[in-house]
């Protein structure tokens, strides 16, 4: 059974800190890994990672995938209160299936 595990489940830091969120996966015919930010109801897309070792960056956020060790990290530098959200990691299988397997998320709280 496909599985995605995120850690930590929750994290409280102060504004300005740097955080690293972890995601490990076991997925049959793995194709790609996706990160989402969920503030209210609708998760918003952050990154899709397909190749190992290639960092993707968007402002203060960056992410990288390690396909040998089956994990990904999401880094947020110089955190702001607006970064407070649940960060979801999802793995996409290959073959004919297309449903993502999501982790339970990391609830990140940034204190002023």
């Amino acid at each position, binding site marked *: 059974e496909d599985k995605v595990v995120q850690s930590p489940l929750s994290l409280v830091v102060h504004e300005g800190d740097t955080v690293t969120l972890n995601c490990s996966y076991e997925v049959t015919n793995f194709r790609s890994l996706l990160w989402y930010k969920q503030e209210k*109801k609708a998760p918003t897309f952050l990154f899709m990672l397909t190749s190992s070792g290639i960092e993707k960056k968007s402002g203060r956020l960056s992410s990288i995938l390690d396909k040998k060790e089956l994990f990904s990290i999401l880094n947020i530098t110089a955190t702001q209160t607006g970064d407070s959200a649940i960060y979801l990691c999802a793995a996409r299988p290959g073959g004919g299936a297309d449903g993502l397997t999501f982790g339970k998320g990391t609830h990140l709280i940034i204190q002023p």
Partner: protein
Amino acid sequence: GAGVSQSPSNKVTEKGKDVELRCDPISGHTALYWYRQSLGQGLEFLIYFQGNSAPDKSGLPSDRFSAERTGGSVSTLTIQRTQQEDSAVYLCASSLVWGGDGYTFGSGTRLTVV
């Protein structure tokens, strides 16, 4: 439309009743997905449509759940004889093509079965 639209945003129903949840994807998006998010849980895949066909129904939790998509656009998720464990947020997402980057999610329907 500009985004993925779901209705209703909230639904309270009595146990045993049937409910229909609607999803209107972004115009031109051929792939449509339904997910369920229960309290404290990650998103759970339910079903995926490519056009009007559903090649992957593997996530539907029971035969009380069904979904259809007509005209390659709007989709409805129907839950028959609702149970309390069906209470969750039901999220719909669409993408331009099968396997496309980063689905766009709707805001979801919060279903409460009492």
